[in-house]
């Protein structure tokens, strides 16, 4: 079971309260988790990564185990603690910097 924490705006858009828990078959990579998340909540398609290129939107960040995974390859397995559900994958809106 993979735990995903979404930012406020995406929780309200998708009607989600609290964390999302997902079952991911095969290697637990960023791509696999995002695929599973969008399959569960199709309205999130295009909000985290581009519809067609699947590139991360520039002001979205991925944090896991206090590390920034935003620029990691999508097919690299996430940390073991995320894979077993001890730690969540955080999907975060980047700081506005105001």
């Amino acid at each position, binding site marked *: 079971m993979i735990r995903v924490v979404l930012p406020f705006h995406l929780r309200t858009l998708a009607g989600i309260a609290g964390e999302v828990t997902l079952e991911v078959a095969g290697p637990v990579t960023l791509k696999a988790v995002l695929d599973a998340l969008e399959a569960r909540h*199709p309205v999130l*398609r295009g909000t985290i990564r581009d519809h067609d290129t699947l590139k991360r939107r520039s002001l979205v960040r991925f944090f896991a185990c206090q590390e920034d995974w935003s620029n990691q390859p999508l097919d690299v397995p996430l940390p073991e603690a995320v894979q077993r559900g001890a730690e969540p994958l955080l999907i975060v809106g980047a700081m506005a910097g105001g």
Partner: protein
Amino acid sequence: MSKIRLLVGTKKGAFVLTSDGARKDWQVTGPLFAGWEIYHLKGSPADPDRIYASQSSGWFGQIIQRSDDGGKTWSTPGTSEAGKEPEGMPVSESNRFAYVGEVGTHKWYDGTQHPWEFKRVWHLEPSLTDPEVAYAGVEDAAIFKTADGGKTWTELPGLRQARGDLWQPGAGGMAVHTILQDPRYAARLFVAISAAGAFRTDDAGATWKPINRGLKSNFELPDPTAAVGHCVHRIALHPSRPDVLFMQKHWDVMRTDDAGEEWREVSGNLPSDFGFPIDVHAHEPETIFVVPIKSDSEHYPPEGKLRVYRSKVGGNEWEPLTNGLPQSNCFVNVLRDAMSVDSLDPCGVYFGTTGGQVYGSADGGDTWTAIVRDLPAVYSVEAQVLP
């Protein structure tokens, strides 16, 4: 008695303001889509309870929302867990705006060519006759159409072929922000684009022609009378006389009597001919409204006095409308989509400000009251008359 519904888009959500036909007492509902930027909401003329909304965020992109019950409930029409795309992913088409064919390029700030990149929907224009049909004006400038109630959107790419390689974004971006429909011919549309100009199609969007003859941009363009590149802020028409269009340009208020073939200036005695919105009285095609703004670098009313100016003769001769509007220390702006009229008699006129006020007049502009004072910055106002 008829009811009035105002659809208000703001920097941090949407609000719905309702009143009876007297337009004195208003109820405020919202924020809807709290925290998201709502550039525009507009109801279908053919079914006023069908409302389209553009919800967007610099972080999370573009969402199209639709209500079929006058704004009580909303959904993203193209989202379906049942439908699957060929690769097995669920369908979520309503927030997908893909340019057709070769993406192409437009002029960039440094003079080089730059690929078109979709950023957001600025304006939604539902069809006059079919609630399933609507147009979307987007940044980077293009027009899209839906024929299935917002589930899917398809570009009308001919617009970008109207010298799109010469369009260059201004500081506010490069967007199709105004879409007008000719009630006589469904195939005729007008659009306006910041820093590109006005354009017309007579074949339902297959081909477009720039309609900027007569515009002069002395300080914005090296060739002040260029075919494209003019910073048109908004255009408006009266449905009874759709060959007459009025334009608020970056500077200058303009008018055409032949569907854009030739424009002439009608700024007349305005204290400033810079501004953003322009609108036409619902029952008097020669009565028009603008809100003068001091200058392109000082986006607030001259002398700190918020004044709507009205011409009852189609321009050139303008009178200030001040009764009920702040006449000192007012330094708000009124954005291009933030003015609207209703079709009651007398005609109602409404506008919103970047300071969060929405003002209304139930007597064609003679007197004004603040319907609400402390919303987020207002991006758009649309008035609907309900039975």
